[in-house]
């Protein structure tokens, strides 16, 4: 190789390294290495306060998971939460999007208002809802009593705690889901609905047989996003319920946190993390499948 060529190659390397180097170094240190390491720590046993003193124990942590009553309970709680969010939030968000899809100023303003909780933090939302849901002095029971009903127990009851959190998260997230649906609806040309109307289709038929099929890409995407968001839930349990009463709101991520930082058992917590990560990746892969099918 000639000298000038070598020199050009060197200077190109310097340019690329200068532009991309800092980003890559941090990505490797704070993303790629930790992703590899969580698999390793899931096969180890150690105390969080003495991370250098680790023992390799093979798949023992995973064996323990399979018979851990609380872990199985946490998976059930998270799965229930995910399904509840899909079944309740998606139809509601789509209905909101249908009602608020226009571009008039008033409608845009209402969309902004519905979206605004998305910009608040989950901690703020949970703290506020802790008070709204308070059985003795909360606004919710204030409204119920005003309407002549008896107040509810909300988060102090094992059967009402998880539904209360679902209601809260729907209030928090629905603006985001609605915006995705609005974007999807606005991308559908109106000629299809018009053609259907000419053929005598009513509003419901147009929605069911024209809009809904054309919206399927957005819908699949929304399903995946909500599944992953709901599976990631942590703060409501930490701030409001500590997983209770009697583990009825024990989200997987909260259980993971508890094992790592309360029981100082990061090896076992890593095994939970690996199961969690695998589930999220499977959902994401299923999304690709479904999306490529809807393209065809």
């Amino acid at each position, binding site marked *: 190789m000639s000298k000038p060529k070598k020199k050009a190659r060197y200077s190109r390397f310097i340019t690329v390294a200068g532009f991309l180097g800092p980003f890559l170094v*941090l*990505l490797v240190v704070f993303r790629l290495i930790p992703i590899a*390491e969580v698999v390793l720590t899931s096969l180890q046993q150690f105390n969080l306060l003495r991370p250098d003193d680790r023992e390799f124990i093979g798949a023992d942590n995973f064996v323990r998971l399979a018979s851990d009553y609380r872990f199985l309970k946490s998976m059930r709680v998270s799965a229930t939460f995910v399904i509840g969010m899909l079944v309740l939030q998606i139809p509601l968000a789509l209905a909101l999007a249908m009602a608020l899809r226009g571009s008039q100023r008033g409608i845009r303003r209402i969309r902004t208002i519905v*979206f605004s909780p998305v910009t608040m933090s989950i901690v703020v939302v*949970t703290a*506020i809802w802790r008070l709204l849901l308070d059985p003795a002095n909360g606004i919710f029971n204030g409204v119920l009593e005003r309407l002549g009903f008896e107040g509810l127990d909300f988060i102090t009851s094992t059967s009402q705690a998880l539904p209360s959190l679902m209601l809260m998260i729907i209030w928090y997230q629905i603006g985001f889901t609605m915006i995705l649906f609005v974007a999807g609806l606005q991308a559908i040309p109106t000629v299809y609905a018009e053609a259907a109307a000419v053929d005598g289709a009513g*509003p419901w038929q147009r929605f069911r047989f024209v809009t809904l099929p054309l919206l399927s890409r957005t819908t699949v995407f929304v399903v995946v996003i909500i599944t992953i968001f709901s599976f990631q839930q942590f703060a409501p349990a930490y701030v409001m319920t500590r997983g209770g009463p009697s583990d009825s709101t024990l989200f997987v991520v909260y259980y993971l946190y508890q094992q790592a930082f309360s029981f100082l058992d990061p090896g076992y917590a890593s095994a939970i993390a690996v199961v969690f990560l695998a589930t999220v990746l499977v959902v994401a892969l299923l999304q690709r499948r479904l999306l490529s099918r809807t393209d065809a």
Partner: protein
Amino acid sequence: MAGLKLMRRRREAEQAPMRLSAPVPGYLRVALGIAVALVFIAPVWWVVAASFKPQFAIFRDASPVTAATFLPFDATLDNYREVFGRLGMGRALINSTIVAVSQVILTLVLCSTGAYAFSRLRFPGRRVLFIIILGTLLVPFESILIPMYLMASRLGLGDMLPAVFLPEIASAFGLFLLRQAFDDVPRELDDAALVDGASHFRVYFDVLLPNIKPALATLVVITFLWSWNGFLWPLVIIQRPELQLIQVALAQTVVPGELPNWGAILGGATIATVPVLILFLLLQRYIVQGFAESAMKG
């Protein structure tokens, strides 16, 4: 003038897409819209109003619900005195501001330079590397919480503010967003500058950056929100009370199983939210648009 306008309107009416019969009459839609808006405004309104009330008035006005529930009669600053005094949330606000501002600036620098490399420089392994970076978007932070904690401690970052933002600034989302923006800028622009002998840094800084201001604004706003609202990572990595961030400080006013400290929660929630709500109302087009677009592309 008026005639012209009328003609234009008539023409628009002719060309406008056929009006599909709406299933719901107009006045009902307005009423519905207002009801929906109230569902989202009322709780926040109540929080701000009640944060100026003494505890007895909060309870007195909450149940049954009347207009007084949403109006700060018997106004007092006691809750804020407690929040800023005994609970030290002023310090937490400053810490959160330091973290969020640092995170925004460093994210902008790292993501824009990285995005330039992928958009304008050719080097071996470029495609594979980009796919790997995008792949990390699929990995939820919660799943790598433990190795992240071990890594930060190993690097001696434990219990320091940079430990909160350093792991976040190489943002795959930001790189992706800005790369899209760079790709949309015509190459003729930088080719001309390169022929004139400008360095890649000049092209990046003087030619391309000014052309992607909307994308930069979106990244600034979303990164600020992310940073300001972050909870799990600061909860884990910061222990010293004087370094606490606002979300963690607020979380500690709610103690599960105990009676809540209403004044502290209301005051704390208000000061933790007002900065971002103002930011949101000023810059909402960047947020809503950015969220929807980036989500759809991702």
